[in-house]
């Protein structure tokens, strides 16, 4: 029991350490400062969306449309640059606003119908995927203004800009969850929405806010992604929701709601980053990587589910 509770608390960090050591022994290139910065830069987009997904998961939902949002918002924003020559700052803001609206629509739809979030956001995923293809005619949109490059490729001092943005949102995200009553409400509705409602919480509104915030963060991530690959690509986010979910669940955010911390989710994102990076360095093909990540997600969810059952039986 003691070992079990230690593992529950620090297991994720142990897993991360083991992975790092293993890859370090496997390949010398892995164990370098530049590679570590590289890993963190690579996961900054994943990390930002994972914060949003954590809000949604903690409040008892799930958002499968985040990957499509990544593509769609990139395409829309890139189109604003190339076709309509809109001021970069304004274009990016509109992009993020649209993402927030998409999230809000997810939330309003889920909160007001009895459609399971899994299905509702799956529908949104498909809609956005299609819209992205329509707008881009299926091809990446090139020709972005040089000034936006800074967001995805620039540095502030020695640190890459995406990492700075990630850190800002980790701080804000943790603040919202731990210090504001909105954070409490997320945990409350994710744990038991009937008690929450009977305690005077506007469950529909809070639920919608969680999805809206997830949309907002996906929008931010989409701008970084667009800037990093220097184009608006309609396919860049395909399957990204899997990585996001895996990171969150690995980090102890429960798919059944009411549990989780931003810190844990970020360690989860790091594990995904280390895993991808290490596997690439060790020349494991992309197809095998998919299989491995799928297995990791399955294990993480199984662990979460077993844990949940244990807690429920403890409660009785």
């Amino acid at each position, binding site marked *: 029991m003691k070992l079990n509770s230690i593992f529950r608390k620090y297991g994720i960090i142990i897993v991360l350490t083991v992975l790092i050591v293993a890859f370090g022994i496997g390949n010398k290139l892995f164990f370098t400062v530049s590679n570590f910065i590289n890993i963190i830069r690579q996961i900054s987009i994943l990390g930002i969306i994972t914060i949003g997904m954590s809000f949604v998961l903690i409040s008892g939902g799930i958002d499968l449309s985040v990957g499509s949002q990544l593509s769609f918002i990139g395409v829309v924003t890139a189109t604003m640059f190339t076709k309509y020559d809109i001021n970069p700052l304004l274009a990016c803001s509109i992009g993020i606003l649209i993402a927030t609206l998409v999230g809000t629509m997810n939330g309003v739809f889920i909160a007001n119908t009895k459609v399971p979030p899994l299905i509702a956001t799956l529908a949104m995923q498909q809609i956005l995927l299609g819209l992205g293809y329509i707008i881009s005619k299926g091809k990446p949109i090139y020709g972005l203004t040089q000034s936006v490059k800074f967001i995805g490729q620039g540095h502030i001092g020695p640190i890459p800009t995406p990492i700075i943005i990630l850190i800002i949102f980790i701080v804000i995200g943790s603040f919202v969850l731990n210090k504001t009553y909105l954070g409490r409400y997320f945990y*409350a509705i994710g744990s038991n929405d*009937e*008690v929450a409602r009977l305690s*005077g919480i506007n469950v529909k509104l809070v639920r919608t806010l969680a999805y809206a915030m997830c949309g907002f963060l996906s929008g931010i991530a989409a701008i970084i992604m667009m800037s990093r690959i220097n184009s608006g690509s309609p396919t860049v986010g395909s399957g990204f929701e899997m990585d996001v979910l895996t990171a969150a669940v690995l980090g102890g955010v429960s798919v059944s709601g009411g549990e989780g911390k931003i810190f844990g989710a970020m360690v989860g994102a790091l594990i995904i980053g280390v895993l991808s990076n290490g596997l690439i360095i060790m020349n494991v093909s992309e197809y095998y990587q998919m299989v491995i990540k799928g297995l990791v997600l399955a294990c993480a969810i199984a662990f979460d589910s077993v844990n949940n059952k244990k807690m429920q039986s403890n409660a009785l």
Partner: protein
Amino acid sequence: MNNENLLSLKSITKSYSGVTVLDNVSLDIRKGEVHALVGANGAGKSTLIKAISGAIIPDKGKIIFEEKEYNSMSPQLSSSLGIAVIYQEFNLIPSLSVAENIFMGNRLDNSRLVNFKKLEEKANEILKHFSIDIKPSQKVKGLSVAYMQIVEIAKALTRNIKLLILDEPTAPLTNVEVDVLFDLINSLKEKGVSIIYISHRLEEIFGISDRVTVLRDGKKVVTLNTQETNRKELIGHMINSEVGEEYPTRAAKYGEVLFEAKNLCGKGFKNINFKVHKGEIFGISGLVGAKRTEIVRAIFGADKLSSGEIIFEGNNVMLKSPYDAISKGIAMIPEERKSQGVILNLSIKWNLTIAIVRNISKLFVVNLKKENEVVDEYKNVLSIKMSDEGQRVSTLSGGNQQKVVLSKWLASKPKLIIFDEPTRGIDVGAKKEIYNIINRLADDGIGIIFISSEMDEMIGLSDRMIVLSEGEIMTELNKEEFSKLEILNFASGNK
């Protein structure tokens, strides 16, 4: 009817975690009789039926069915012996046809395919007995409740049944439908089927049954020939004349009218009128199915009212959500503590402040200092036993969980508190503490609406009460008019 016994129960005893729900109950059911089972809430009727159907295994006792002795039943065994139970909740698949439901789990022949024509013909044969118009091909979801019940009974009749148990069968039925059901019962009886009939509508018991057994607090009180008894005698047997718990006495001094319900109508209840004064404990009494919980939930804004007015502190108020009710100063301790009262996986602290955390926040940010003050204040008011306030509520005992719910609402400084079964499932010591708290709150001038299924509690605590039966007020009683006999008489539908 002959005097041969179909079923005999001998000294059936069952207890759950130390609480005896059936205590040495012995009962004979004769062949071809309608045997009614009556008793107040918690008398043990449902448990007794479960012992017969095999849903539970008795701790002690014997079940003799057709002269064979069994220590316990199982659902398979009871069904193979010809025992069928029709519960209040139906066991039908709405998207399938009447015929398919009737023969659910029964193969007509050895073919791998279903012969729908044959199925429907067979179903028709059974349905013919009921002299009502149901097409076997009709989907169940389109049927009225009464017809669903008949399908449920028809399902039982596909087997060769000897004992049919009906648990509150008439609760959802209209008068005409009750007549249909009674015709059916009588025709089954003529065929020699025995029927156990549970209902809290005493007039029905006199209309349909041959004998009646009264249960009280898990014990059998008496079995009588229905023709040789009357309503008053039955009720007399149903109530416990001993004085139960000691209830803290209190000189009720109540002030002006705080709350008034005017003609409230909603899910299952209508024309509810009552007033609650400041400092008054106002009881809402009734049997299971009287819609007590539905009424208070609607008052609290948790469910919709279809019409009626609520006047609070002299103003006509619209309470569309619990939020509205809370902001007016109304709190509700709900019936189901674990699913509606506390959030089990969150900390005691967060549970205590969940209803007011918004009020102690500035620009969304929770003032942790203020929160700690609130927690410190209220955890001591009710002396919740805990190691620290970060502890999950799931680790607390039932009584302490209930105190968390109470504290959470006290922290919102309410003017009216609704207590719906506040003592259910908690130990005797904690119960007493809760009585004292309720009295103290009333002494402080808070209006209290109190619901309990324990009659002693209702009488011991309330200053005034209304008695409901099936969603309507039967009477309003003042403290000096309280008597178990009166209350039960009204609660079982006698105006």
